[in-house]
Protein backbone atom coordinates (compact mmCIF):
# COMPACT_ATOMS: atom_id res chain seq x y z
CA UNK A 1 0.00 0.00 0.00
CA UNK A 2 1.58 3.27 -1.06
CA UNK A 3 1.56 5.80 1.75
CA UNK A 4 -0.11 9.14 1.07
CA UNK A 5 2.44 11.76 1.95
CA UNK A 6 1.10 15.10 3.17
CA UNK A 7 2.51 18.43 4.05
CA UNK A 8 1.25 20.42 7.01
CA UNK A 9 1.50 24.21 6.71
CA UNK A 10 1.66 25.96 10.04
CA UNK A 11 0.44 29.53 9.57
CA UNK A 12 -0.33 32.55 11.66
CA UNK A 13 -3.23 34.88 10.98
CA UNK A 14 -2.31 38.53 11.60
CA UNK A 15 -5.13 40.96 12.35
CA UNK A 16 -5.13 44.57 13.43
CA UNK A 17 -7.76 44.08 16.08
CA UNK A 18 -7.09 41.19 18.44
CA UNK A 19 -10.68 40.86 19.60
CA UNK A 20 -11.89 40.03 16.10
CA UNK A 21 -9.48 37.08 16.14
CA UNK A 22 -11.81 35.24 18.54
CA UNK A 23 -14.31 34.75 15.71
CA UNK A 24 -11.83 32.55 13.86
CA UNK A 25 -13.39 29.32 12.66
CA UNK A 26 -12.27 26.36 10.59
CA UNK A 27 -15.02 26.97 8.07
CA UNK A 28 -14.06 30.56 7.30
CA UNK A 29 -10.41 29.63 6.73
CA UNK A 30 -11.46 26.73 4.51
CA UNK A 31 -13.65 28.97 2.35
CA UNK A 32 -11.06 31.72 2.15
CA UNK A 33 -8.26 29.38 1.09
CA UNK A 34 -10.46 27.67 -1.48
CA UNK A 35 -11.49 31.01 -2.95
CA UNK A 36 -7.91 32.30 -3.07
CA UNK A 37 -6.59 29.18 -4.80
CA UNK A 38 -9.45 29.32 -7.30
CA UNK A 39 -8.68 32.97 -8.07
CA UNK A 40 -4.95 32.47 -8.35
CA UNK A 41 -4.73 29.08 -10.07
CA UNK A 42 -8.15 28.65 -11.63
CA UNK A 43 -9.90 25.35 -12.11
CA UNK A 44 -6.65 23.39 -11.83
CA UNK A 45 -6.06 24.78 -8.38
CA UNK A 46 -9.59 24.03 -7.21
CA UNK A 47 -9.26 20.49 -8.51
CA UNK A 48 -6.08 19.92 -6.51
CA UNK A 49 -7.85 20.98 -3.33
CA UNK A 50 -10.60 18.39 -3.77
CA UNK A 51 -8.02 15.65 -3.30
CA UNK A 52 -6.75 16.24 0.22
CA UNK A 53 -7.20 19.61 1.79
CA UNK A 54 -8.28 20.19 5.37
CA UNK A 55 -7.88 22.72 8.13
CA UNK A 56 -6.67 20.62 11.03
CA UNK A 57 -6.24 23.04 13.92
CA UNK A 58 -7.35 26.57 14.67
CA UNK A 59 -6.36 28.47 17.78
CA UNK A 60 -8.58 31.52 18.11
CA UNK A 61 -6.52 33.06 20.91
CA UNK A 62 -3.21 33.24 19.05
CA UNK A 63 -4.34 32.96 15.44
CA UNK A 64 -2.34 29.81 14.65
CA UNK A 65 -3.79 27.49 12.01
CA UNK A 66 -2.65 24.15 10.64
CA UNK A 67 -3.52 23.25 7.05
CA UNK A 68 -3.00 19.86 5.44
CA UNK A 69 -2.53 19.14 1.76
CA UNK A 70 -0.82 16.66 -0.54
CA UNK A 71 2.96 16.74 -0.78
CA UNK A 72 2.87 16.97 -4.56
CA UNK A 73 1.11 20.32 -4.69
CA UNK A 74 1.63 22.07 -1.38
CA UNK A 75 3.59 24.79 -3.17
CA UNK A 76 0.57 25.75 -5.25
CA UNK A 77 -1.50 26.10 -2.11
CA UNK A 78 1.31 28.00 -0.37
CA UNK A 79 1.69 30.44 -3.23
CA UNK A 80 -2.01 31.35 -3.04
CA UNK A 81 -1.90 32.16 0.70
CA UNK A 82 -0.36 35.66 0.32
CA UNK A 83 -3.35 36.69 -1.79
CA UNK A 84 -5.81 36.27 1.07
CA UNK A 85 -6.71 39.71 2.32
CA UNK A 86 -9.83 39.09 4.39
CA UNK A 87 -11.72 36.31 6.13
CA UNK A 88 -15.49 36.11 6.20
CA UNK A 89 -17.30 34.80 9.23
CA UNK A 90 -21.09 34.90 9.50
CA UNK A 91 -21.35 37.97 7.31
CA UNK A 92 -18.52 39.87 8.99
CA UNK A 93 -15.42 40.58 6.97
CA UNK A 94 -12.20 40.66 8.92
CA UNK A 95 -9.16 42.08 7.09
CA UNK A 96 -6.15 39.93 7.78
CA UNK A 97 -2.97 38.49 6.38
CA UNK A 98 -1.66 34.95 6.60
CA UNK A 99 1.98 34.34 7.40
CA UNK A 100 3.41 30.85 6.97
CA UNK A 101 5.63 29.83 9.88
CA UNK A 102 6.61 26.23 9.16
CA UNK A 103 6.08 23.42 6.69
CA UNK A 104 6.22 19.94 8.18
CA UNK A 105 5.60 16.40 7.09
CA UNK A 106 3.71 15.39 10.20
CA UNK A 107 1.58 17.09 12.81
CA UNK A 108 4.19 16.19 15.43
CA UNK A 109 6.99 18.19 13.79
CA UNK A 110 4.69 21.17 13.46
CA UNK A 111 3.83 20.91 17.15
CA UNK A 112 7.50 20.80 18.11
CA UNK A 113 8.10 23.93 16.08
CA UNK A 114 5.03 25.60 17.59
CA UNK A 115 6.32 25.00 21.12
CA UNK A 116 9.68 26.61 20.23
CA UNK A 117 7.95 29.50 18.48
CA UNK A 118 5.56 30.11 21.36
CA UNK A 119 8.49 30.24 23.82
CA UNK A 120 10.15 32.81 21.55
CA UNK A 121 6.96 34.90 21.41
CA UNK A 122 6.64 34.81 25.20
CA UNK A 123 10.25 35.95 25.51
CA UNK A 124 9.48 38.82 23.16
CA UNK A 125 6.49 39.78 25.28
CA UNK A 126 8.50 39.95 28.49
CA UNK A 127 9.92 43.51 28.01
CA UNK A 128 6.42 44.82 27.31
CA UNK A 129 4.93 43.59 30.60
CA UNK A 130 3.86 46.37 32.87
CA UNK A 131 3.26 44.78 36.24
CA UNK A 132 5.29 42.25 38.19
CA UNK A 133 2.30 39.90 38.27
CA UNK A 134 2.14 39.79 34.48
CA UNK A 135 5.86 39.14 34.32
CA UNK A 136 5.55 36.25 36.75
CA UNK A 137 2.75 34.77 34.68
CA UNK A 138 4.77 34.97 31.50
CA UNK A 139 7.76 33.33 33.18
CA UNK A 140 5.57 30.52 34.49
CA UNK A 141 4.13 30.01 31.01
CA UNK A 142 7.59 29.78 29.52
CA UNK A 143 8.62 27.12 32.03
CA UNK A 144 5.52 25.08 31.36
CA UNK A 145 6.07 24.86 27.60
CA UNK A 146 6.62 21.25 26.75
CA UNK A 147 5.37 18.47 24.52
CA UNK A 148 3.68 15.56 26.25
CA UNK A 149 2.60 12.19 24.97
CA UNK A 150 -1.12 12.87 25.03
CA UNK A 151 -3.13 16.07 25.33
CA UNK A 152 -0.66 17.92 23.14
CA UNK A 153 -3.14 20.37 21.73
CA UNK A 154 -4.57 21.34 25.09
CA UNK A 155 -1.03 21.94 26.42
CA UNK A 156 -0.35 24.52 23.75
CA UNK A 157 -3.66 26.23 24.34
CA UNK A 158 -2.88 26.48 28.05
CA UNK A 159 0.57 28.01 27.63
CA UNK A 160 -0.61 30.77 25.34
CA UNK A 161 -1.65 33.46 27.77
CA UNK A 162 -1.54 36.66 25.84
CA UNK A 163 -1.63 39.81 27.85
CA UNK A 164 -3.75 42.32 25.98
CA UNK A 165 -3.04 46.00 26.55
Amino acid sequence: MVRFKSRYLLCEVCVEDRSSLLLLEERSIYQAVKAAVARAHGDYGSALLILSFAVKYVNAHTGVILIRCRKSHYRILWSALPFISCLENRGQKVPCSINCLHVGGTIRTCQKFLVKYSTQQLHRMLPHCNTEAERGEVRRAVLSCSLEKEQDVEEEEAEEEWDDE
Partner: protein
Amino acid sequence: MVCRMATFMDLNINFTKDKKTLQNIIETAAHLGYSTVAINYTLESQQKKPEIPKPTSISDLFDKLPVVQGRSRPIRVLNRLTVVATDPSHFRPTTEYKAFDLVAVLPKTEKLFHAACMTFEVDIICVTVTEKQPFHFKRAPVNGAIDRGVFFEIVYTPAIRDSTMRRYTIGNSLGLMETCKGKGVILSSGAERPLELRGPYDIANLGIVFGLSEGDAKAAVSTNCRSVVINGETRTTAFGIIRTMKKPQPAPTSSEEKEDGREIPASKRVKMEH
Protein backbone atom coordinates in the same frame (compact mmCIF):
# COMPACT_ATOMS: atom_id res chain seq x y z
CA MET B 1 11.76 27.66 9.24
CA VAL B 2 12.78 30.55 11.48
CA CYS B 3 16.17 30.58 9.77
CA ARG B 4 19.13 32.02 11.60
CA MET B 5 21.27 32.55 8.54
CA ALA B 6 19.66 34.72 5.89
CA THR B 7 18.83 38.36 6.45
CA PHE B 8 15.64 39.44 4.75
CA MET B 9 14.99 42.95 3.62
CA ASP B 10 12.00 44.85 2.33
CA LEU B 11 13.18 47.90 0.46
CA ASN B 12 9.90 49.56 -0.44
CA ILE B 13 7.54 50.80 2.23
CA ASN B 14 5.49 53.74 1.02
CA PHE B 15 5.87 56.87 3.04
CA THR B 16 2.69 58.17 4.65
CA LYS B 17 2.31 61.37 6.63
CA ASP B 18 0.52 59.35 9.31
CA LYS B 19 3.17 58.44 11.86
CA LYS B 20 1.09 55.74 13.54
CA THR B 21 0.62 53.79 10.30
CA LEU B 22 4.33 53.96 9.54
CA GLN B 23 5.17 52.73 13.03
CA ASN B 24 2.68 49.86 12.68
CA ILE B 25 4.12 48.83 9.34
CA ILE B 26 7.65 48.77 10.68
CA GLU B 27 6.59 46.80 13.76
CA THR B 28 4.81 44.26 11.56
CA ALA B 29 7.91 43.97 9.39
CA ALA B 30 10.02 43.27 12.47
CA HIS B 31 7.49 40.67 13.62
CA LEU B 32 7.60 38.92 10.24
CA GLY B 33 11.39 38.66 10.27
CA TYR B 34 12.73 41.49 8.10
CA SER B 35 16.10 42.82 9.30
CA THR B 36 16.08 45.96 7.19
CA VAL B 37 13.35 48.11 5.68
CA ALA B 38 13.50 51.24 3.55
CA ILE B 39 10.92 54.02 3.58
CA ASN B 40 10.18 55.07 0.02
CA TYR B 41 9.55 58.72 -0.95
CA THR B 42 8.11 58.97 -4.46
CA LEU B 43 8.94 61.96 -6.58
CA GLU B 44 6.46 62.57 -9.39
CA SER B 45 7.97 64.81 -11.99
CA GLN B 46 4.71 66.23 -13.33
CA GLN B 47 5.02 69.56 -11.59
CA LYS B 48 7.00 72.41 -13.07
CA LYS B 49 9.47 72.54 -10.20
CA PRO B 50 9.40 69.33 -8.26
CA GLU B 51 10.29 69.60 -4.61
CA ILE B 52 12.47 66.83 -3.42
CA PRO B 53 11.02 65.60 -0.12
CA LYS B 54 13.26 65.63 2.90
CA PRO B 55 13.61 62.27 4.58
CA THR B 56 12.40 62.21 8.17
CA SER B 57 15.03 61.11 10.62
CA ILE B 58 14.42 57.70 12.14
CA SER B 59 14.64 59.00 15.70
CA ASP B 60 11.45 60.96 15.00
CA LEU B 61 9.52 57.76 14.46
CA PHE B 62 10.84 55.50 17.18
CA ASP B 63 12.58 55.95 20.47
CA LYS B 64 13.50 52.31 20.42
CA LEU B 65 13.38 50.31 17.21
CA PRO B 66 11.49 47.00 17.44
CA VAL B 67 13.58 43.84 17.61
CA VAL B 68 13.52 41.51 14.63
CA GLN B 69 11.77 38.15 15.10
CA GLY B 70 14.35 35.43 15.51
CA ARG B 71 17.29 37.75 16.12
CA SER B 72 18.50 39.99 18.88
CA ARG B 73 19.14 43.14 16.87
CA PRO B 74 16.65 45.94 16.26
CA ILE B 75 15.34 46.51 12.78
CA ARG B 76 17.32 48.85 10.53
CA VAL B 77 15.38 51.59 8.73
CA LEU B 78 16.73 53.32 5.64
CA ASN B 79 15.45 56.14 3.45
CA ARG B 80 14.93 55.78 -0.26
CA LEU B 81 13.88 58.05 -3.10
CA THR B 82 12.03 56.92 -6.22
CA VAL B 83 11.93 59.25 -9.21
CA VAL B 84 9.11 58.62 -11.68
CA ALA B 85 10.68 59.79 -14.93
CA THR B 86 9.10 60.42 -18.31
CA ASP B 87 11.85 62.73 -19.52
CA PRO B 88 15.63 62.55 -19.17
CA SER B 89 15.72 65.98 -17.57
CA HIS B 90 13.62 64.77 -14.64
CA PHE B 91 16.44 62.84 -13.11
CA ARG B 92 19.11 65.18 -11.86
CA PRO B 93 21.39 63.77 -9.18
CA THR B 94 21.83 66.78 -6.98
CA THR B 95 23.10 67.00 -3.43
CA GLU B 96 19.56 66.45 -2.12
CA TYR B 97 19.70 62.93 -3.50
CA LYS B 98 22.69 62.29 -1.25
CA ALA B 99 20.46 62.56 1.81
CA PHE B 100 18.83 59.27 0.87
CA ASP B 101 20.44 55.89 1.37
CA LEU B 102 18.99 54.46 -1.82
CA VAL B 103 17.94 56.04 -5.11
CA ALA B 104 15.56 54.41 -7.58
CA VAL B 105 14.05 55.40 -10.89
CA LEU B 106 10.88 54.27 -12.63
CA PRO B 107 11.41 54.82 -16.35
CA LYS B 108 8.32 55.22 -18.50
CA THR B 109 9.87 55.20 -21.97
CA GLU B 110 12.26 52.91 -23.76
CA LYS B 111 14.93 55.59 -24.23
CA LEU B 112 14.85 56.44 -20.56
CA PHE B 113 15.06 52.78 -19.61
CA HIS B 114 18.16 52.41 -21.76
CA ALA B 115 19.74 55.53 -20.27
CA ALA B 116 18.86 54.44 -16.71
CA CYS B 117 20.44 51.03 -17.22
CA MET B 118 23.66 52.29 -18.71
CA THR B 119 24.42 55.73 -17.34
CA PHE B 120 22.21 56.93 -14.49
CA GLU B 121 23.58 56.80 -10.99
CA VAL B 122 20.84 54.71 -9.44
CA ASP B 123 20.69 51.63 -7.29
CA ILE B 124 17.31 50.26 -8.32
CA ILE B 125 15.25 50.37 -11.51
CA CYS B 126 11.55 49.81 -10.87
CA VAL B 127 9.40 47.78 -13.23
CA THR B 128 5.85 49.03 -13.80
CA VAL B 129 3.34 46.63 -12.32
CA THR B 130 0.11 48.60 -12.58
CA GLU B 131 -0.19 48.72 -16.35
CA LYS B 132 0.97 46.92 -19.44
CA GLN B 133 4.65 47.50 -20.08
CA PRO B 134 4.85 50.20 -22.80
CA PHE B 135 8.13 48.82 -24.14
CA HIS B 136 9.85 45.47 -24.36
CA PHE B 137 12.98 44.67 -22.39
CA LYS B 138 15.99 44.40 -24.61
CA ARG B 139 18.87 42.17 -23.61
CA ALA B 140 21.64 44.77 -24.08
CA PRO B 141 20.59 47.39 -21.52
CA VAL B 142 19.40 44.73 -19.04
CA ASN B 143 22.75 42.95 -19.11
CA GLY B 144 24.54 46.29 -18.91
CA ALA B 145 22.60 47.17 -15.78
CA ILE B 146 23.33 43.81 -14.14
CA ASP B 147 27.04 44.26 -14.85
CA ARG B 148 26.99 47.70 -13.27
CA GLY B 149 25.28 46.37 -10.16
CA VAL B 150 21.86 47.93 -10.69
CA PHE B 151 18.91 45.77 -9.69
CA PHE B 152 15.37 45.55 -11.04
CA GLU B 153 12.56 45.78 -8.56
CA ILE B 154 9.14 44.16 -8.67
CA VAL B 155 6.51 45.38 -6.24
CA TYR B 156 3.96 42.80 -5.14
CA THR B 157 1.29 44.70 -3.21
CA PRO B 158 -0.79 45.78 -6.26
CA ALA B 159 -1.08 42.07 -7.06
CA ILE B 160 -2.61 41.44 -3.65
CA ARG B 161 -5.08 44.28 -3.94
CA ASP B 162 -6.59 43.73 -7.35
CA SER B 163 -7.01 40.93 -9.87
CA THR B 164 -6.24 42.97 -13.00
CA MET B 165 -3.05 44.27 -11.40
CA ARG B 166 -2.11 40.66 -10.68
CA ARG B 167 -2.15 39.90 -14.40
CA TYR B 168 -0.03 42.92 -15.22
CA THR B 169 2.44 42.16 -12.44
CA ILE B 170 2.91 38.53 -13.47
CA GLY B 171 3.03 39.39 -17.17
CA ASN B 172 5.58 42.17 -16.79
CA SER B 173 7.76 40.18 -14.44
CA LEU B 174 7.73 37.13 -16.73
CA GLY B 175 8.86 39.44 -19.53
CA LEU B 176 11.72 40.68 -17.36
CA MET B 177 12.75 37.14 -16.38
CA GLU B 178 12.97 36.09 -20.01
CA THR B 179 15.52 38.81 -20.64
CA CYS B 180 17.53 38.76 -17.45
CA LYS B 181 17.35 34.99 -16.75
CA GLY B 182 16.55 35.53 -13.10
CA LYS B 183 19.64 37.54 -12.13
CA GLY B 184 19.52 40.97 -10.60
CA VAL B 185 15.93 41.03 -9.34
CA ILE B 186 14.59 42.08 -5.98
CA LEU B 187 11.05 41.68 -4.71
CA SER B 188 9.53 44.18 -2.35
CA SER B 189 6.17 45.28 -1.05
CA GLY B 190 4.81 48.71 -1.74
CA ALA B 191 2.96 48.45 1.52
CA GLU B 192 0.75 51.30 2.62
CA ARG B 193 -0.89 49.43 5.47
CA PRO B 194 0.54 46.87 7.90
CA LEU B 195 -1.77 44.12 6.62
CA GLU B 196 -0.27 44.34 3.14
CA LEU B 197 3.09 43.00 4.24
CA ARG B 198 3.89 39.32 3.77
CA GLY B 199 6.52 37.12 5.31
CA PRO B 200 9.84 36.59 3.50
CA TYR B 201 9.29 32.90 2.75
CA ASP B 202 5.85 33.68 1.32
CA ILE B 203 7.45 36.26 -0.95
CA ALA B 204 10.10 33.81 -2.07
CA ASN B 205 7.24 31.51 -3.05
CA LEU B 206 5.56 34.34 -4.93
CA GLY B 207 8.82 34.83 -6.77
CA ILE B 208 8.45 31.33 -8.17
CA VAL B 209 5.01 32.29 -9.50
CA PHE B 210 6.58 35.41 -11.04
CA GLY B 211 9.01 33.29 -13.04
CA LEU B 212 12.11 33.01 -10.87
CA SER B 213 13.75 29.71 -10.03
CA GLU B 214 13.74 28.54 -6.42
CA GLY B 215 17.26 29.69 -5.58
CA ASP B 216 16.82 33.00 -7.40
CA ALA B 217 13.55 33.68 -5.60
CA LYS B 218 15.13 33.28 -2.18
CA ALA B 219 18.09 35.41 -3.28
CA ALA B 220 15.68 38.09 -4.48
CA VAL B 221 14.56 38.64 -0.89
CA SER B 222 17.88 38.27 0.87
CA THR B 223 21.25 38.48 -0.86
CA ASN B 224 20.24 40.73 -3.75
CA CYS B 225 18.69 43.23 -1.35
CA ARG B 226 21.88 43.21 0.68
CA SER B 227 23.88 44.00 -2.48
CA VAL B 228 21.58 46.93 -3.22
CA VAL B 229 22.07 48.39 0.24
CA ILE B 230 25.85 48.04 0.01
CA ASN B 231 25.84 49.63 -3.45
CA GLY B 232 23.84 52.50 -2.03
CA GLU B 233 26.45 53.00 0.65
CA THR B 234 29.26 53.20 -1.89
CA ARG B 235 27.53 56.09 -3.62
CA THR B 236 28.40 58.32 -0.71
CA THR B 237 32.04 57.29 -0.58
CA ALA B 238 34.93 58.09 -2.85
CA PHE B 239 36.04 54.89 -4.59
CA GLY B 240 34.35 53.01 -1.77
CA ILE B 241 37.17 53.52 0.68
CA ILE B 242 37.08 56.99 2.14
CA ARG B 243 33.99 58.62 3.51
CA THR B 244 33.53 62.15 4.74
CA MET B 245 31.52 62.58 7.88
CA LYS B 246 30.60 65.69 9.76
CA LYS B 247 32.09 65.59 13.21
CA PRO B 248 29.72 67.00 15.83
CA GLN B 249 32.42 68.97 17.69
CA PRO B 250 32.85 72.67 16.94
CA ALA B 251 36.66 72.33 16.63
CA PRO B 252 37.90 72.68 13.03
CA THR B 253 38.72 69.26 11.62
CA SER B 254 39.92 68.11 8.24
CA SER B 255 37.12 67.33 5.82
CA GLU B 256 38.34 63.84 4.89
CA GLU B 257 38.67 61.15 7.51
CA LYS B 258 38.55 57.39 7.43
CA GLU B 259 35.34 55.46 8.36
CA ASP B 260 34.19 56.62 11.72
CA GLY B 261 31.52 54.95 13.80
CA ARG B 262 30.49 52.55 11.06
CA GLU B 263 32.99 49.78 10.84
CA ILE B 264 33.13 48.02 7.52
CA PRO B 265 35.41 44.95 7.57
CA ALA B 266 38.40 44.90 5.29
CA SER B 267 36.90 42.26 2.99
CA LYS B 268 33.96 44.49 2.13
CA ARG B 269 36.22 47.48 1.65
CA VAL B 270 38.19 45.61 -0.99
CA LYS B 271 35.01 44.52 -2.75
CA MET B 272 33.69 48.06 -2.99
CA GLU B 273 36.60 49.29 -5.09
CA HIS B 274 35.01 49.66 -8.49
